[in-house]
C-alpha cells in the first residue's frame, strides 16, 4: 500500500516523538514553534540547569547593576508549551542508530527527531586551584550573576576583569557605574578588538578610560593568588606587575557544550556542531542527518551570504531565528523546508553607549565611517571585504542598522558609492579594520568563521560591480 509523503508528515506531527536537548532561549523558542507549527506529538525538553528557560543578556547588565534580580529573567513564553520538562538533568550521550538519548540520571529517552541546543558555557580560568579561590567568578548562568552581584554589593576594593570582549566590557561598565574600582586586562590591543577590529576597538578603549577603568591592553593575567584562607588577594600580569584585587571576573569567552556527543558519530567538537543551512546536523563523515537538528550557540552552519563559510554565532537573535527554522524543518519535508538565512545581528550596551552590529565584522578587512564620527563616539562603521559590504557597527546610531542590513543582503559595493546623510568632510576613505591575526587565540570574536564549502564555486551571485 502506497503511503504519500504528506500522510507520513501528518502522522509524524500527530504521533511523533521530539526531544529538545537544551532548555534555554533556543530550546524554548523551538518548542513553541513546534507546537504552533502543528506538532501535537510527544515533546520533551531536557536542560542541565534547574530553572525554566531564562534570558542571559540582562545578567551582565541590569542584574549586575542591581536593577533586576538574577532569578527573575525567566523568559516569557509565546504560547503554552505542552511538554515534558526534564530540568536539572544533563544529557550525557546519544545513540544515533537507536535514536536514543542518555541522561545523567541514567534514564534513556527514545526520539524520532532530536534538536540539540546545548549552547555554550563560560570558559573557566585555566588553573583549577586558582579558579576555586573565593572571589573568582565567571558570568554565564543566573546563579553566576547572583553570586557576583552579591559580592559587588559588598563593595570590594578592586575588581579585575580578565578579558575585554563584550561580556567583560559590560561587567566593567556595571562595576564603574556602581562606583567600584576596576582593572581590565586584555591580551589584545584594545577592548572588543576580536569582534570589531582595532579601529572601533580604539574607541572602546577611550570609552573605558574616560569612565575611569584602569584598562591594560597587551597583557595577560598569568596567575591569581589567594591568602591562607583561600580568598583572592592578588593577580599577576605578564608585564611583571601585580595587582591587589578582591574580585576577579574571568571573561574569556565560551566553550561549546559538545563533550557529551563525543563518540556519537555527529560532527561535534570544540567549534560546535556542524549542520546545514536547514539546521540538520552532519555526521562525522560530513553526511547530513535527517533526524538530528541543531540550533543556537552550539550550531555551526554555512551562510550563503558569506561565501558559505560556516558561522558559529553566539548571538541572542541567532538562537531565536535558528530555533524557528529548525523547528519548522523538523515538521516539514522537501520544498517546504527553510534555510537559516538570518543576517547576524547583536547588541551590547556599555558605558552608556548602545553598540549594535549587523553582518560579520571580523570577515571585513577594511572599514569606513559613513556617518557620525569616532571622536563623538556616535557613528556608523561599515566593514568591507573584496569590494562588498559585509558588516556595519553602530555606536548610538541604531536606527541605521536596518538600512545596512539590506545593503549586506544585496551585496552592495564597498566602499559605499552613495552620499550618506552627513557626508564625511574628508570623503569616505577606507582604512584597515585592524583585526588581529585570526590564528592567535582570542576570546573576543562572537563570530567564528571556519572552512569553505566546495559548492561555493557553483553559486550564482550576480556581482554588484565588475
Amino acid at each position, binding site marked *: 500500500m502506497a503511503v504519500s509523503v504528506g500522510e507520513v508528515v501528518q502522522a509524524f506531527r500527530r504521533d511523533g516523538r521530539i526531544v529538545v536537548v537544551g532548555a534555554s532561549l533556543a530550546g524554548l523558542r523551538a518548542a513553541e514553534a513546534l507546537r504552533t507549527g502543528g506538532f501535537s506529538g510527544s515533546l*520533551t525538553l531536557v536542560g542541565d540547569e534547574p530553572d*525554566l528557560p531564562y*534570558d542571559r*543578556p*540582562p545578567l551582565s*547588565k*541590569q542584574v549586575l*547593576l542591581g*536593577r*533586576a*534580580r538574577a532569578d*527573575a*529573567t*525567566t*523568559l*516569557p*513564553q*509565546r*504560547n*503554552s*508549551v*505542552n*511538554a*515534558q*520538562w*526534564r*530540568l536539572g538533568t544533563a544529557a550525557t550521550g546519544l545513540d544515533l542508530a537507536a535514536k536514543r538519548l542518555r541522561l545523567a540520571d541514567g*534514564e534513556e*529517552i527514545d526520539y524520532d527527531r532530536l534538536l540539540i541546543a546545548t549552547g555554550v558555557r563560560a570558559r573557566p580560568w585555566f588553573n583549577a586551584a586558582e579558579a576555586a579561590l573565593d572571589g573568582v567568578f565567571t558570568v554565564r548562568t543566573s546563579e553566576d550573576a547572583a553570586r557576583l552581584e552579591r559580592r559587588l554589593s559588598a563593595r570590594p576594593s578592586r575588581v579585575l576583569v580578565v578579558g575585554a570582549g563584550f561580556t567583560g566590557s559590560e561587567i566593567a561598565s556595571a562595576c564603574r557605574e556602581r562606583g567600584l574600582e576596576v582593572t581590565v586586562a586584555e591580551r589584545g590591543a584594545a577592548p572588543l578588538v576580536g569582534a570589531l577590529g582595532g579601529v572601533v576597538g580604539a574607541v572602546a578603549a577611550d570609552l573605558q578610560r574616560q569612565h575611569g577603568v584602569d584598562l591594560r591592553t597587551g597583557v595577560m593575567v598569568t596567575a591569581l593568588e589567594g591568602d591562607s584562607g583561600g580568598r583572592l588577594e592578588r593577580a599577576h600580569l605578564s608585564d611583571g606587575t601585580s595587582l591587589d584585587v578582591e574580585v576577579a571576573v574571568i571573561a574569556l569567552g565560551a566553550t561549546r557544550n559538545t563533550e557529551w556527543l563525543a563518540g556519537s558519530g555527529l560532527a561535534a567538537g570544540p567549534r560546535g556542531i556542524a549542520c546545514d543551512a536547514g539546521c540538520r546536523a552532519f555526521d562525522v563523515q560530513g553526511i547530513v542527518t535527517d533526524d538530528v537538528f541543531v540550533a543556537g550557540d552550539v550550531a555551526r552552519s554555512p551562510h550563503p551570504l558569506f561565501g558559505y563559510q560556516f558561522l558559529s554565532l553566539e548571538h*541572542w*537573535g541567532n538562537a*531565536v531565528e535558528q530555533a524557528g527554522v529548525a523547528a519548522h524543518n523538523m515538521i516539514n519535508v522537501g520544498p517546504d523546508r527553510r534555510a537559516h538565512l538570518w543576517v547576524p*545581528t*547583536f*547588541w551590547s*550596551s556599555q558605558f*552608556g*553607549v*548602545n553598540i*549594535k552590529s549587523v553582518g560579520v565584522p571580523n570577515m571585513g578587512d577594511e572599514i569606513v565611517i559613513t556617518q557620525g564620527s569616532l571622536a563623538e563616539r*556616535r557613528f556608523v562603521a561599515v566593514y568591507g571585504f573584496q569590494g562588498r559590504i559585509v558588516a556595519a557597527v553602530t555606536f*548610538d546610531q*541604531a*536606527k541605521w*542598522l536596518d538600512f545596512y542590513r539590506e545593503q549586506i543582503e544585496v551585496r552592495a559595493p564597498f566602499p559605499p558609492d552613495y552620499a550618506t546623510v552627513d557626508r564625511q568632510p574628508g570623503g569616505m576613505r577606507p582604512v584597515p579594520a585592524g583585526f588581529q591575526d585570526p590564528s592567535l587565540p582570542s576570546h573576543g570574536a562572537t563570530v567564528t568563521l571556519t572552512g569553505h564549502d566546495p559548492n561555493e564555486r557553483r553559486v550564482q551571485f550576480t556581482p554588484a560591480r565588475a
Partner: protein
Amino acid sequence: MCDRVVTVWLEGQGLRMRIVVDLNRCQGYAQCAFLAPDVFEMHGEEALLYDPAFTEAHREQVRRAAAACPVQAILVEADEARVTPVGA
C-alpha cells in the same frame, strides 16, 4: 519516562509577569520608558534597561508600552501561556 504532567502557576515568583525586549529590534524610541517608567529606562542616549519581571500593579502600563513600541520589540507573556507544565 514519567508521563505525569504537573501544571503549576508561578506563585513561587510572586505572580510576577514576564517580558523580554528584542534589543536587536529596539531603536531607542523610548516610548516604553515614557509609558512605563518603573519598568523601562533609557540608559544613555539610546540603550534600554528594563526589569524582566514586574508586578500586577504595572500590568496596564506595560501593556500600553508594548502596544506603543514603534518596532514591536516587547514581548509580554500571554496570560494563557503563564500556565507552565513541569514534568517530574
